[in-house]
């Protein structure tokens, strides 16, 4: 009940229909908390059945045993010991899992830095330089539409550009800059990072833009009036106020890249190992407990990263 209604109620009780006695008079009326349950319950059930319980199963199955063709529901640490095989014996050399995670973290870091840079400036342009609401809407939509189209198509779209005989290579050869087509353009770490940036910068742009449009323009004017340069305003006013968006965007990008196996698979020519790809490989070999153990490890690492980042900002307050 808002203020005006409260005042009205005090002035002449019973004036507002549906409040006080009028509401109590209807015996069939459902209680508000019951209605809330009816409204929110179905979504909660979907998350319970298809997200929370499955996560519990991942954790349980990661401690099960397995043979060549089936799950054996008996406690075993084999999923984990298989995963960390050689990690102590091979020291000081790194074992496969450690190498894979290092590689994934490296990809993650590269993609994070690049998407943050692009996302920040795209959002900055939209929020501060585009003055008309119509243009702001139109240009935001322009950035969003690719998000509604297929990721795989946006990956294979690079093939005619980056392939051996692709536009980039043939252009470079024609101009005489190189003699032979560059091999590292496609099915390489380069193309993986390029495709990830291409696909997921959107997840940076949206939250950063959201934070930036909420910044009171008079704060920026005040900074200028107080003699701050453009750069000082950026560092001391805009970036701190856009921080929630930056953190939320970073969480999205980092978790997506940490768990990615499709982009890394398609753009890496199925040759690059990554945290998500191990899980896929184990599933394809029907080694479910090992797959689940890897999923738990990935989950823990992702969770640690998110906890670290959400220390910086209260996510719930920002939505």
């Amino acid at each position, binding site marked *: 009940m808002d203020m005006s209604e409260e005042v009205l109620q005090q002035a002449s009780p019973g004036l507002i229909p549906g409040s006080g006695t009028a509401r109590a008079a209807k015996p069939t009326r459902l209680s508000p908390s019951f209605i809330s349950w009816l409204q929110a319950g179905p979504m909660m059930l979907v998350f319970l059945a298809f997200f929370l319980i*499955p996560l519990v199963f991942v954790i349980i199955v990661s401690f099960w045993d397995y043979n060549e063709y089936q799950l054996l529901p008996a406690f075993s640490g084999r999923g984990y010991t298989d995963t960390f095989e050689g990690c102590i014996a091979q020291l000081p050399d790194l074992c496969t899992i450690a190498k894979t995670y290092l590689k994934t973290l490296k990809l993650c870091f590269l993609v994070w830095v690049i998407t943050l840079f*692009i996302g920040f400036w795209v959002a900055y342009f939209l929020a501060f330089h585009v003055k008309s609401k119509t243009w702001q809407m139109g240009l935001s939509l322009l950035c969003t539409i*690719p998000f509604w189209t297929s990721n795989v198509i946006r990956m294979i779209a690079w093939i005619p550009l980056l392939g051996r005989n692709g536009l980039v290579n043939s252009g470079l050869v024609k101009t005489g800059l190189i003699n032979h087509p560059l091999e590292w353009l496609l099915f390489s770490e380069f193309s993986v990072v390029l495709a990830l940036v291409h696909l997921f*910068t959107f997840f940076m742009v949206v939250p950063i833009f959201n934070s930036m449009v909420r910044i009171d323009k008079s704060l920026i004017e005040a900074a200028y009036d107080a003699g701050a340069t453009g750069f000082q305003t950026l560092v001391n006013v805009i970036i701190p106020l856009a921080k929630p968006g930056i953190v939320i965007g970073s969480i999205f990008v980092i978790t997506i890249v940490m768990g990615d196996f499709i982009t890394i698979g398609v753009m890496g020519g199925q040759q690059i190992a990554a945290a998500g790809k191990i899980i896929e490989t184990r*599933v394809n070999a029907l080694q479910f407990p090992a797959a689940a153990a890897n999923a738990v490890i990935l989950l823990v690492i992702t969770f640690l990263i998110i906890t670290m980042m959400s220390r910086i900002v209260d996510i719930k307050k920002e939505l």
Partner: protein
Amino acid sequence: MKEGRPRSFYVLAIFFAAYTLFLYGPMIAIYVLSFQGPQGGLTFPMNGVSTFWIAKLFQGTGIVDLGAAFRRSLLLGVIVMIVTVVLSVAAGMAFRRKFKAQSILFYSAIASLIVPSIITSLGISLEFRIIDDLIKAHWNENFETSMGLLTSGLGAHLTWTLPFGLLIMFAIFNRFDPRLEEAARDLGATPWQAFRHVVLPIILPSVIGIGLFGFTLSWDELARSSQAIGAVNTLPLDLQGLTTTVTNPDIYALGTIISAVSFAVITLALGTIHMLNKRQAAKGSDAGKGLV
């Protein structure tokens, strides 16, 4: 007089244009290449212009049974869209009041959005395998599987679309004026009437936006479907399967057709939203506009 724009405007405008080109350029390249002549290859230059590769897909001489995958994806997309809209609007309404388990639902949605898709997908597949084993052990030895497009597949897609739906509902009700609804109730409307005749018409454009997210995200979904869809494939899964054996432009043709559906849905949704907004502006309240 109009003030001149600062130099940073032009620098960033060029940056933005370059980003847009980066976003759309490659996509446009494959749309063009799918109209290669019959002798054409995977890259430029075009070797004639034809609808050969697209026609080839429709003839079904391609590598996969496209028609079936197309219908499956369409069916799943429409169901995911409807369920996402209904559940998101309902849950969004619930969040306007305080209720127990509010934060559990909120954090479930956020977690579902950011837990890597492969983990969710693996979890659903394990859950259904274990259910299958239980059924086989206790009830029916000949039971095949409970995994499928509209069981585990639908659930997997919903874990991806519902968080978006819920977040859009939050955005809607952040700028919704509750006095409109109170006014309706003061005039004697039942809660259902207030929702049906006041709240719903106002939020309808954004609700269509939720539907747009629901359909397009499901239509293109890959990571969550990968382990949880069961024996059959959706269109994006077939497309991904083709990427390992790319030899001729029919993969581009398939990409173009999938995108054509996406763009048709996007246009339809945005057109409807635009129309509704215009109608709201024309027929909406004239409060505060004076008597003249």
